[in-house]
């Protein structure tokens, strides 16, 4: 759901830039404080993986496709702050090099996917994880959070489109939430599958499993 330029008016993209710049600045500071040696290459690998996975659109119903957002996956592996930083790197790269998402809209895209989709998704993951217990809760918590992260990002995207006067809220909100409720199922399945694989081969790499990395 990379918003292109033209969909948002300045009263929407400008404040989104301000909020995203401030939030990601804070995330950079927090990441620098929490960063352990082994997280350094993992941030590179996650950037690469999410960039690659976002190229793979899978078909959903009615001539529509979706791709992994990866926010919850990054946040469970790296923690919410480093996760948001990784998503932001990917979004900036996609915008500047591949024209995927507008430049004016970049602040809004970072807000929807790197902040709501990643940090918001992580809060949801933690919630489910606490209820289910650490080990069992990992896949289920991540899957539930992954679904919510996509739907929530779509809801915020719809709000921005409505504020911009691009489409009336009562039309764009159900449309965006509805189609992303389906795309979110793909997000949940991929997120849970990748985490199961990592849990099997390198459980020590999962931030969300240890609570914190040592």
């Amino acid at each position, binding site marked *: *759901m990379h*918003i*292109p*330029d*033209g*969909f948002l008016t300045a009263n929407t993209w400008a404040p989104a830039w301000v909020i995203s710049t401030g939030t990601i600045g804070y995330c*950079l500071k927090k*990441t*620098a404080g929490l*960063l352990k*040696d*082994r*997280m*350094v*290459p*993992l*941030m*590179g*690998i*996650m*950037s*690469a*993986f999410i*960039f*690659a996975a976002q*190229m*793979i*659109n*899978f*078909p959903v119903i*009615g*001539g*529509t*496709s*979706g*791709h992994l957002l990866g926010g919850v996956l990054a946040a469970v592996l790296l923690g919410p702050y480093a996760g948001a*930083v990784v998503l932001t*790197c*990917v979004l900036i*790269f996609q915008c*500047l*090099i*591949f*024209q*995927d998402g*507008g*430049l*004016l809209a970049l602040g809004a895209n970072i807000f929807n996917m790197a902040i709501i989709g990643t940090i918001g998704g992580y809060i949801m993951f933690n919630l489910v994880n606490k209820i289910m217990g650490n080990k069992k809760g990992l896949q289920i918590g991540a899957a539930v959070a992954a679904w919510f992260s996509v739907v929530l990002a*779509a809801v915020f*995207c719809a709000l921005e*489109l409505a504020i911009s006067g691009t*489409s009336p809220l009562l*039309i*764009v909100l159900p*449309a*965006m939430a509805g*189609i*992303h409720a389906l*795309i979110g199922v793909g997000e949940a399945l991929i997120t849970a599958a990748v985490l199961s694989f990592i849990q099997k081969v*390198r459980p020590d790499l999962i931030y969300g499993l240890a609570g914190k990395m040592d």
Partner: protein
Amino acid sequence: MSRKDIAVGVIIAVAIAFFLSPLASSWPDGLEKVAHDHGFIVKGEQGSVFKSPIPDYIFPGLKNEKMATAISGLLGTLVIFGIGYGLASLLKKNKDCR
């Protein structure tokens, strides 16, 4: 993480980008579909404020569009790995200096 772990991670990402991106669905994504159905897709077609070097992941100068996508995926994945790794290294260095 050992060098081998890092290599395995990068190879998985590069393989996804190179081998799967040409097979990706070309149907519109959720937002494009909604924009199309509700008549505001044209607003996004008025051209961006700037031009990216590789629009739509189609590497320039290649006749085969699927190959052009695969090459964009391959190179893009390697470059973004470097960016992510580089930024993390900088943040780490910053922390160690303090």
